[in-house]
């Protein structure tokens, strides 16, 4: 039981490049989330999903797109044209219930955009 895993762990991009971050969970959770964590800002929600094929915007969605795959344990975060403002640590989380009583986090992806 690996919990929540994220790929890759580190990445450096140039401005304008694109990339996809992958999150996978093996707990059969319905709800999955992408957060970014910046110094002095705390964790902020980018997008989330309440089940296979569903996604919704969070607090800071601009510049990102997401997809929840048919194999519902996977949740992708895409950056179509990376900007230096997207330099951050990205965390994926999953939860079992709609009441959001608990969320389990992955180890994070450290992204630098030059």
């Amino acid at each position, binding site marked *: 039981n690996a919990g929540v895993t994220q790929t890759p762990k580190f990445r450096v991009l140039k401005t304008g490049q694109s990339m996809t971050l992958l999150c996978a969970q093996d707990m059969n959770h319905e709800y999955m989330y992408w957060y970014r964590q910046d110094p002095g800002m705390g964790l902020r929600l980018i997008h989330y999903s*309440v089940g296979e094929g569903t996604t919704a915007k969070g*607090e800071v969605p601009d510049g990102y797109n997401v997809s929840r795959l048919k194999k519902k344990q996977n949740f992708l975060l895409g950056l179509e044209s990376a900007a230096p403002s997207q330099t951050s640590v990205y965390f994926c989380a999953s939860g079992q219930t709609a009441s959001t009583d608990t969320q389990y986090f992955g180890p994070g992806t450290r992204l630098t955009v030059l």
Partner: protein
Amino acid sequence: QKEVEQDPGPLSVPEGAIVSLNCTYSNSAFQYFMWYRQYSRKGPELLMYTYSSGNKEDGRFTAQVDKSSKYISLFIRDSQPSDSATYLCASDSGGGADGLTFGKGTHLIIQP
């Protein structure tokens, strides 16, 4: 104004001391309150979870929620150097699946 406020610290205490970490929140709809611990360059891990007001104890950790004053606390007894980490409080109304509202985190240092 962020809905959950937390002093970023750092908070430095000697080993064995009782640690008190605190948050305030502004959204009266919040019913679920959590504390996460985050070690450097790691993901947050759930430490304590409380529903509504009251206390919850788990080993050396006690979480306390006072909804009348919108105050959330985490107490750590007999603090250890391994407790050195950033502690994040988080809240949610439970009305949907739209994520948690986090404080910015308090950096705690336990001096051996």
